[in-house]
């Protein structure tokens, strides 16, 4: 009997439940960490100008996105806006958070006068943390 008991003890038994626990933990871990963020401030149908000397910057939720499309229409934070509204927004921005990063998305065909106008408004409001978004083969 005693010998028999010993034999029984030696039998390898792999309990499945902790394994499955582990696997699901892993699964959840990956699901959570790989959530791809969508850029909600992006404007559709913008054909970014091509550049050869751009830097990749980490995505930033706090960024203030201004976009100008090929028809010189202005978008603020991804929503259609106008120059008067943009100027008001910049006024607010200067008071509340002058160091906030600003991203300027333009189309390759954006009229230059509009770009100059927006850049001038930015510099007049003393907002200097401005970046321009471009297309670069290496990163995009």
């Amino acid at each position, binding site marked *: 009997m005693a010998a028999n008991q010993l034999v029984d003890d030696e*039998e*390898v038994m*792999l309990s*499945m439940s902790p*394994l*499955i626990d582990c*696997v*699901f933990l892993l*699964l959840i871990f*990956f*699901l959570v960490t*790989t*959530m*791809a963020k969508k850029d909600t401030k992006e404007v559709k149908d913008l054909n970014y100008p091509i550049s050869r000397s751009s830097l990749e910057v980490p995505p930033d939720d706090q960024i203030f996105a201004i976009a100008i499309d090929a028809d010189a229409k202005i978008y603020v934070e991804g*929503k*259609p806006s*106008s*120059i*008067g*509204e943009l*100027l*008001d927004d910049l*006024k607010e921005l*200067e*008071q509340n958070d002058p160091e906030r990063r600003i991203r300027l998305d333009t189309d390759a065909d954006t009229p230059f*006068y*509009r770009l*100059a*106008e927006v850049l*001038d408004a930015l510099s*007049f409001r003393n907002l200097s943390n401005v970046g321009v978004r471009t297309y670069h083969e290496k990163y995009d």
Partner: protein
Amino acid sequence: MGPNSRKPLLIALGIASVLAIVVSLVLYLNEDLRRSTFVMLEKTVNEKGEEEIRVKVEKPKPNKEQVEKISRTRERQKRDKLKEKAEEIRKTVKEMARVEEALRQKLSAKNEWSAIAELADKLDASFDSLTTEFADQKTLENDPDVLPAIFHMRRQVRELLKKVQSFVEVKPDPEEAGGYLADVRKMTEDEGAVRGRIMQNAEKWTLTRREKIDEADRLGQEYLKAVQQLVGVPPAVGIEPDDPVVFEEDLEEPGSDVLDSLPTDAEFENMTTGELYESIQDMTQLMDGVFAENRAAELAMMENITMEQATDRIYAPKTDTGPDVGKALDAMNPANLEQFQKYSEMLNQVERSAENMARTAANRLGQVSPAANDGNKATQTAQQLRQAIQQQAQARSQMQMLADNAGRAKGNVQDMRALMAQSYQNGFSGRPAPDTGGIAPSLNASMSASMSPSYQNGFSGSQGSEEGGVVLSQTFKTSMDPGGGGRSGKEKASAPIRLDLNQVLQQAIPGRRLDQNATRKGWVFIDTWYIIGPWARPLKDSFDSKFPPETAIDLDATYPGKINPKTGKSATLEWRFVQTENIRVNPPDEISDAVYYAYTEVFAERAMEVMVAVASDDLAKLWINDFVVWQDEGLSSWRLDEGFRRILLKPGYNKVLVRVENGPAVCYFSVLMCPLDMLQAASK
């Protein structure tokens, strides 16, 4: 090896299959992780008629319950936002209506004291010229005590004037009126004593001087008589029974129809989202109406015309109230995904328009009489408001006089600092101006410095023509009140400025920020403008007709412009961004007989005294922070030194609006600014 030996293998197989299932599950569920996907291809025909093969994307569809749940949550979020905006707009409308009420009150405020106030004004003017007349060395030689006595008199008259102006606002009680009568009597007695003293040695004084003192005496007597008459009658009889104005503090809650129609908090609470949006639209329209009336009342007050005439002359701006989707929004009850997307899009749209409306309302409030922009609105009583408006109106009309360049020699200088300081203080007392951020505290200090008595004196002196006398009276005054500071006394009052044209043209730098620590200093020409035009130029009294930008600046607005004689149609005007490296700005779309407006903002690091030079071809009018600073009529060609104005910029952003009119041929304008201390440093 028994059958036991297979067990591990089976287990391994089990683990492997579990892993495989897990990975495929992950890939199936998370689109971002997989490189390719199983898709159905579908053939479609695009707009150009070409065949295209497209991926048919099928996503799991939420069921009806889920959709309803999401849309309810979404609606609740947007509703809260809308409510917030609605409350903002309501507050703005209320504030505007309050100002309007006060303005109207002011317009119709003619009680029996206003006649007295006019007399007091005359008396004050007479003493002003008397003081100027007597303030020189000769007086001190003839009778050293006369001059201080005259200054004392003048101060008394000032006090009387101020008091009577406050009586026009609020009727005094009999006791106060009696006290006032005593004051007036004392003043006339003092004045009689001074006159007697002068007349004793009449041969020492010139004829004009004697005449002046006689006139002051006569006016003083007249004044006394008028006050006596008024105070003598029982006060209640003063007001006609059918007098429309009630001089009581019933203005705390302006009970006009406007405010009655505004919804209450409870009503907001009970509204559906669509109704809330409609209510916002209604309030915005109401706000437009109140704003237009506000501007009209201001204009009526400035130009002494009736409210109806003023309403005709101003442009009533219409705020874009967004799409009328309130009803549709309430009717919608999304059951599937497509409907929900539409619904959500509509909610977004509604939210955006509500935001825009609230913003426009806030901007408009900033444009109505700055007196209303006091931070502590609750503590400002209707009476204070009316007083502020009164002072504002006085300052404005005085400024208008100074601004007019007609008949003034080229290179003339007018000093508007004191008036502007007074107006700013009126409108900005104790509040951090919204435009200025952290710079605001310096405002009050510098403003009150510039409000010192001698400064005021300097203002009245600088428009006089007898420079010698004026300068002396200023220095004298300074030595009399030691606290006053001799700021304006040091400056030569109104010596015309000669600009070395070439030098300025070469050295003026473009910009619109006046920073203290700028590397390059000197004249700055404003190089960035938003310009709109052309409108048809009125044939005569051109400045009387007002175009939309004079009522409200809205850079997104479009207006019908001058009618093209060839097509018979008017062009649609919009603001255009103009940046130039030339001192002279040439409006785009330049045609003859046209009116253009140019708008920009100038940044001043602190409250800054600035010399402004405006030059134009042909007519021009300049507003700074809604105050007329320059007005030049007549078809003149562009000259850099047409005239100069000393003005005061508040810290932060200052609005600059120019109206240029073109007669025949070319059209140019230029606005140059230079901080006064730099000018003085340069001239030393």
